[in-house]
């Protein structure tokens, strides 16, 4: 009796998980150097590279992004509109959703997340301050 209930619920759960992770799945998370040639919506994680220009509420904020912690110097141009988190600035780790259009990564409005300050990851000498 108990086993039957447990197994049936476990089965339902397994189906749910498989369904959402395969069909309704999330977006791939990529570093800027992996972005070339990608179509479709992805999550881009990287370091903000200056100069930062433009207006997030008029025409879009423009900046570059490069890989975190790798030697690659590939920089992707990003256009972003919508709410800009407090911690956004050059050198900061950020994550944005969007897709590559004609060489520019066009972010979805309001999708930017900055690395949360509560992580306190040890600062490396190589990291820009």
């Amino acid at each position, binding site marked *: 009796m108990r086993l039957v*209930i447990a197994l049936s619920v476990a089965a339902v759960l397994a189906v749910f998980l498989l369904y959402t992770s395969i069909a309704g*799945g999330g977006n791939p998370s*990529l570093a800027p150097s992996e972005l070339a040639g990608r179509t479709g919506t992805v999550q881009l994680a990287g370091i903000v590279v200056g100069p930062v220009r433009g207006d997030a*509420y008029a025409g879009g904020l423009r900046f570059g992004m490069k890989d*975190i912690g790798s030697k690659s110097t590939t920089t992707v141009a990003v256009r972003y509109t919508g709410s800009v988190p407090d911690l956004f600035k050059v050198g900061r780790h950020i994550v944005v959703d969007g897709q590559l259009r004609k060489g520019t990564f066009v972010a979805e409005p309001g999708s930017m997340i900055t690395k949360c300050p509560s*992580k306190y*990851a*040890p600062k490396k000498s190589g990291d820009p301050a």
Partner: protein
Amino acid sequence: MPELGRAALLVTLGLSTYALVAGAYAAHVGRRRLARSAQNALLAAFASTAVAAGVLVAALLRNDFSFEYVARTTSRALPTEYTLSAFWGGQEGSLLLWLLILTGFGAAAVSVNRAWAKDLILWVVPVFAAVATFFAFVLVAVASPFATQAAPADGAGMTPSLQNPYMLAHPPLLYLGYVGLTVPFAFAIGALLSGKLDERWLIATRRWTLFAWAALGVGQLLGSHWAYVEVGWGGYYAWDPVENAALMPWLAATAFLHSVMIQEKRGMLKVWNILLVILAFSLALFGTFLTRSGVVNSIHSFTQSSIGPWFLGFIAVVVATSLAILFCRLPQLRSPTKLESAISREAAFLYNNLLLLALCLAILWGVVYPMLSEAFRGEAVVLGRSYYDFFLRAFGLPLLLLMGIGPLIAWRRASLKSLLTTFRWPTISALATGAVLLVLGAGSSIPGLVAYTFSAFVLTTIVMEFARGTRARKALGAPSWLGAFTSLITRNRRRYGGYVVHAAVVLFAIGVAGSSAFDSVADAKLAQGESMRIGDYTLLYRSLDERETANATEIRATLAVQRGDRDLGTLQAGKNAYTVEQQVSNEVGIRSDRLTGEDLFVIAEQINRDGSVQFRVFVKPLVNLIWLAGLVFLLGSVITLWPDRREQRRLVARASTVGLPATR
């Protein structure tokens, strides 16, 4: 001074290794005096850890920047209370706090219980010592808080958003919760190892588990409130892996607190309970790992942290060893009773457990999915908000309903007829609430409407339970209604404290449903003198002011708020620019309506040179019920936790007459 700290940690490592080895040997061959010495080593490990902690506190207070840790997390200008909070502001300090609480809890739990549960404690000590050895080793060899350097002139300072009273209480409460879950784990494994598989380990750890669970719950709500008021993006929970890190062990512990009652009353679910304890403790370790390793927030920075692999290895060892020990004892853990019907209190508790666990595992899956998909498909895939929201509804809503059914349905077997009488009024009140809300327009969100209907059901059952119990007490001769009510609670704290916690969960559900399913948002760029509308609020942007303070430039936009024709005064929203840290922070304006629990939430997203401001305004109905729920949750937890000698004596007496489950 750093030498003293390092030496103290080495002593802790030595003592806990001794307690582990000597304790296990003594328990195995049955040497009482050696076992006693292992217990004392555990107590001494607490003392030496306290010395190490004292050294770090002193270094923080003296701004001794020759400690790398102090220089990295504080600065001279930092106020004293935040200098102290830097103790848990960094990785090494928070690991030291873990070890301090762990050895403290271990020493206390062992001292309190060694008189009446001697043979159990024999094996509990080495389990505690094993966990302490791991943390002491990491602190000595991998992440020492006492690393030194040539002292710089000033420290790097603390991120402005952490310079906040919430950060004084939120992290330590979470650590109390994480570490507190070690106590039931150590006693469960100790019971398995010793072969004393009666209910004593449950009696010994019930309050510890409750305490850890309450601390985790309150700690998380404080964190949510901090995010809501200070971080200023307009929400309180973002399904961030670090937030989930605390939620998962809390859900596992919640399941355990419920299934334990089934073991106490009916002798069932013994294996299940031990599995839940192992899961809760592993998730607490995993939570510490998530918050401290930086592995999740950027999947590409796994190597950034030196402790990550050690933690993963330890978690693997804990899970594998505990399951192996459990497997060896399986034959002794057979239940004397069986589930008789799918409609009974036992079954309701079982469904509750399965749903809590399903929710917990769904969240775990979401947290580890990016890492798994990177490992197996070569590409990290992140599951977003919609994934978590889906499972919160799919599993959370039935859980809410069960919260009303579980406490009232009959043990063993309930007839359909008895169900009709028991749940007549709750059902009527739920349907009536649903109908009224539908007429009022709550049909815009079906999950929200379902949540409200279920909430009405549960609240009715709780009120009925209190009313019935109070009436019975009055009939038994209580002098007044108030006297009857208080004696009802004091005579059965577990039950009625539990109901109070249930009421808190209902308030929480109403607050979450109101603020997420029925909220509204408006964006507008306003020049001075212009106004915007949201719902029946009108906001007039009146002026922009700039002010210099000691460490920041504060810019504030002042808005005049009207609701309908009524003037509600002014509200300020703006930004602080911190000079030293070179950071900007949003300072949101919130107007709470005390009567309806609704918030008007204003963010000044962007302040332009010409004085115009890009505003984002939310109206969040009922959101204040979430914070009220926190207070009620705390009250309920305190009621259940309050020391009750009579109950403890009764439980001990029952356990000593060979753990026969009292059937009812």
